């Protein structure tokens, strides 16, 4: 049997589900076995995703590795999956961080290990599924499937205020996504009304072609775009619907924070690039000015608020608001460097913030505290850890040569070309980022060893080899993408060109009260 005949995408998605089912039947008193099965299924999925990456042809702009099966024929709903460059790289990012997170959970998670691993693997199913769905109904299902395990991961294994944080996370997400469901159904019905058939009414490729050739009527576009956009903006999260993020990030267990920051936030940005903009390009133009302003507010606001956070994780959470502001800005200036930068920034933010949360988790294991003020002088006691943390801090601050720089630089280029004022505000933020990151680094690592840390005595050990193993792949990728950003750009060029050619061809729909 030829490798190319395998349903590769389905395998990547559902191998973790098989792992979860196996774990459900394992005895509770065998933690080693449960961990091994969880890691093995995540690694298999990861290996398969590397096959996908190797086999993917970047010069072909069409969706590759497509699998199509009828599911609910009465409405033309299909199990239809496929990837372009953008999906491929996000799938690989997901599978990479999944096994890393599972490995990083081996020591910290002691209670209900079985349920934890099941939740984590189902989370991976939902996340990969979102990135490969080419049917809106299927997409929505994966979009919601991912919600439940994350809810449990924060709520069961999280910090002191976990129940508040997890309910806030779920309710915010649900409001957005349920309105998106109405929009999906309305879009499908509009298509059915126009063509007289349900065939293709939920099929992304058909709908996109419909949007290019005939276009959806103005009112539907405006409403549906807003609903899609709200769902995605909550996930990204954009100012002012970001308030669930600091709570969820702070209360989640380490691996939960990693997945939240690295992958879940990307769902929103991915949804904008994949669905909201191409399906409703006119409405996207209409609302772009507002979205750009909100992105700028988010960039500046996130950075300023990060400066005054007393909690290690909370500070990084607010830095996510800033970094993701770059992404939405880059998308909605509808300009090549901007969109390239947005995609690169998505990947970088996943690697860098994922790494930072892993490292905070390493220290939290030893100190059980994250109050920045209690730390100080760690550099003397844990030199390797300090070096690792410093690396990620500089990557996050956008040091040239590391990948964080590339994304922000491209977005900056794009925004200056779009409007110098927008570019100026964005650039100012690089200074803020340096300020809060270096302040944090200085506070925690330099100076005298703090009394709190001294009190820990021998518990305060340097980073262990297994912990190093979890962050080394991320560090390697950060260097690689920093030196050779072409690796990503080459892969996603097809996606970028397709989206831009569609959106640049149309002009804004006038809102009825603006005419």
């Amino acid at each position, binding site marked *: 049997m030829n490798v190319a005949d395998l349903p590769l995408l389905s395998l990547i998605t559902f191998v973790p589900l098989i792992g979860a089912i196996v774990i459900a039947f394992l005895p509770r008193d065998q933690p080693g076995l449960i961990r091994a099965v969880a890691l093995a299924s995540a690694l298999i999925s990861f290996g398969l995703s590397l096959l996908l990456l190797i086999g993917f042809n970047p010069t072909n702009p069409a969706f590759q590795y497509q699998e199509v099966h009828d599911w*609910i*024929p*009465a409405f033309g709903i299909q199990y239809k999956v496929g990837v372009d460059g953008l999906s491929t790289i996000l799938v690989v990012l997901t599978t990479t961080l999944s096994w890393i997170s599972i490995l990083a959970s081996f020591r910290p998670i002691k209670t*209900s290990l079985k*349920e934890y691993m099941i939740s984590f693997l189902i989370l991976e199913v939902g996340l990969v599924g979102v990135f490969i769905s080419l049917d809106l109904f299927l997409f*929505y*299902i994966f979009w*919601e*499937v991912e*919600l*439940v395990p994350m*809810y*449990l991961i924060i*709520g*069961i294994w999280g910090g002191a205020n*976990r*129940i508040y944080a997890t*309910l806030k996370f*779920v*309710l915010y997400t*649900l*409001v957005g996504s*349920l*309105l998106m*469901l*109405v929009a999906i*159904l*309305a879009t*499908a*019905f509009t298509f059915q009304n126009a063509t007289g058939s349900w065939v293709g009414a939920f099929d992304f490729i058909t709908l996109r072609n419909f949007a290019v050739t005939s276009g959806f009527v103005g009112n539907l576009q405006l409403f549906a775009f807003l609903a899609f956009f709200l769902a995605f903006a909550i996930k990204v999260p954009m100012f002012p619907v970001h308030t669930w993020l600091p709570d969820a990030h702070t209360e989640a267990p380490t691996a939960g924070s990693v997945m939240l920051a690295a992958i879940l936030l990307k769902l929103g940005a991915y949804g904008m690039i994949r669905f909201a903009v191409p399906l409703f390009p006119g409405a996207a133009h209409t609302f772009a000015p507002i979205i750009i302003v909100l992105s700028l507010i988010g960039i500046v606001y996130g950075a300023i608020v990060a400066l005054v956070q007393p909690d290690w994780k909370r500070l990084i959470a607010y830095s996510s608001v800033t970094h993701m502001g770059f992404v939405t800005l880059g998308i909605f200036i509808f300009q090549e460097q901007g969109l390239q930068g947005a995609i690169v920034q998505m990947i970088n933010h996943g690697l860098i913030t994922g790494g930072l949360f892993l490292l905070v988790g390493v220290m939290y294991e030893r100190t059980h505290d994250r109050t920045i003020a209690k730390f100080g002088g760690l550099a003397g006691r844990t030199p390797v850890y300090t070096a690792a943390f410093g690396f990620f801090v500089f990557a996050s601050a956008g040091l040239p040569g590391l990948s964080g720089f590339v994304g922000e630089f491209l977005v900056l280029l794009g925004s200056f070309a779009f409007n110098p004022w927008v570019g100026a505000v964005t650039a100012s933020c690089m200074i803020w980022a340096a300020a809060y990151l270096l302040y944090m680094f200085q506070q925690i690592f330099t100076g005298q060893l703090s009394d709190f840390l001294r009190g820990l005595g021998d518990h305060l050990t340097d980073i262990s080899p297994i912990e190093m193993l979890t962050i080394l792949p991320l560090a390697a990728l950060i260097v690689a993408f920093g030196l050779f950003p072409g690796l990503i750009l080459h892969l996603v060029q097809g996606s970028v060109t397709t989206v831009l050619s569609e959106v640049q061809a149309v002009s804004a729909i006038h809102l009825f009260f603006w005419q």
Partner: protein
Amino acid sequence: MTWADISTIAPLAAAIIVAAVLIVTDIVLPGRRAPALVVAFLGLAVVAGLAIAVGRTPGTAFDGAYRVDDLTTYLDVLFVAVIALTLLFAPDYLAARDLPLPEFAAVLLFALSGVMLISASADLLVLFLGLELMVLPGYLLAGFAKRDALSTEGAIKYFLLGSFSSAIFLFGLAFVWGLTGTTRIDGVATALKAIAAGSTPLSPGLAMGLAFLTTGVAFKIAAVPFHYWTPDAYQGSPTPVTGYLSVVPKVGAFALILRLFVGALGPLSADWNIVIVLLAAATMTLGNLVALTQDSVKRMLAYSSIAHTGYMLIGLAAWSSPNSQIAGLEGLLFYGAAYAAMNLGAFAVVAAIQRRTGISSQLESFAGLGRRAPLLAALMTLFLLSLTGIPPTVGFFAKAYIILAAVQAGGPAGILAVIAVLNAAAAAFYYLRVVVYMFMREPKGEPAPIVIGRLMRTGLLVSAVLTVVLGLAPGLLLTLVGNAARALTL
């Protein structure tokens, strides 16, 4: 009466005969569980088989007063399944409280004959007979725990308001009969079509009749503001009975709505539609808001069942628009089945936890369930997620279908779609609160261990499988509801 009439009503007759046999069995072998259950399950299988067999050849009997079509078959099989599940959930709970199972089963079978009569009626009087035959056993069951004051109180409230609303409903029927001169459903529809087509405005008498009928059924389905009996009746009843009450009389009353509002009063839909839209909006919203504040899971589920009434009413509201006639009915029928599977399952978990006497249905009783009874907690989570409408469960698909119908209808019903999803998001809070207690809180002290009997386990697994499978592969059920909906429109 001809032989053809008798063969047409065979499923209904079988249900009554099974009920009678159950009573006889109880006289011959008093107080024994096993024979009663065997008779009941065999009997239900026979009833379902006959319903499917008779349903193959749609037709009428008794001069057109009784009508068998695909809608009848669909509802008959649905209700047989619901009664069977109730019979799986109840025995352990009843045995722990010394309540007689054979009588319980017999009363359920009588109620079954009531809903079967509704789903096959082609005449307003038969419809009313069916309605009464369906709700009377409900009053008995609500007060089944005779020595429990709360149960008696709930039953009395249920009975008083129930008979009151039946009287209102009958009053409305009298107006319609008086002004159209017939009690046959198709005859009424023909007469009303003439009225709707003509330029004459709705006569005051007909408007009154419409108002009384709407009020009567709004009581039966527990739509806001006619829902006040629900929480007390539901909370006072023995828990397996609550599950039954939240499904059979409600979905049965929806069957009546389909026969009456769609079948007979359909030509006047322009007049009643806006009332249904308002009822739907109020019912969803108020049901959900009050459910948010409940600390008893049983009472929370009672209010949540009110909210689900609101979602189902959207299907009826969508029916009035020519764009979405079939979709609205299909959505409503699909939702009825989905609601039955997930809601019965949720109440069954509460019943399993309350199997020993003296355990309340407060949220506190659910603390630490994830550790004490992992299977039960996992199943409850599944049912609650389905009630919330999270994929890949049947509750999600049902909600999506109703919303699709509303979107197709547009206009006021289209606004209902947005109200419905905002409500669904709010509802997530109280459903997930139970999950919080089950997995994220520890119980005070060491609660008694939970034992799940064999029947209960079977019933729970059946509900869970239905909840998941119908969500992942709704195709088969879609075909059935499609046929049923078209039978009504023809």
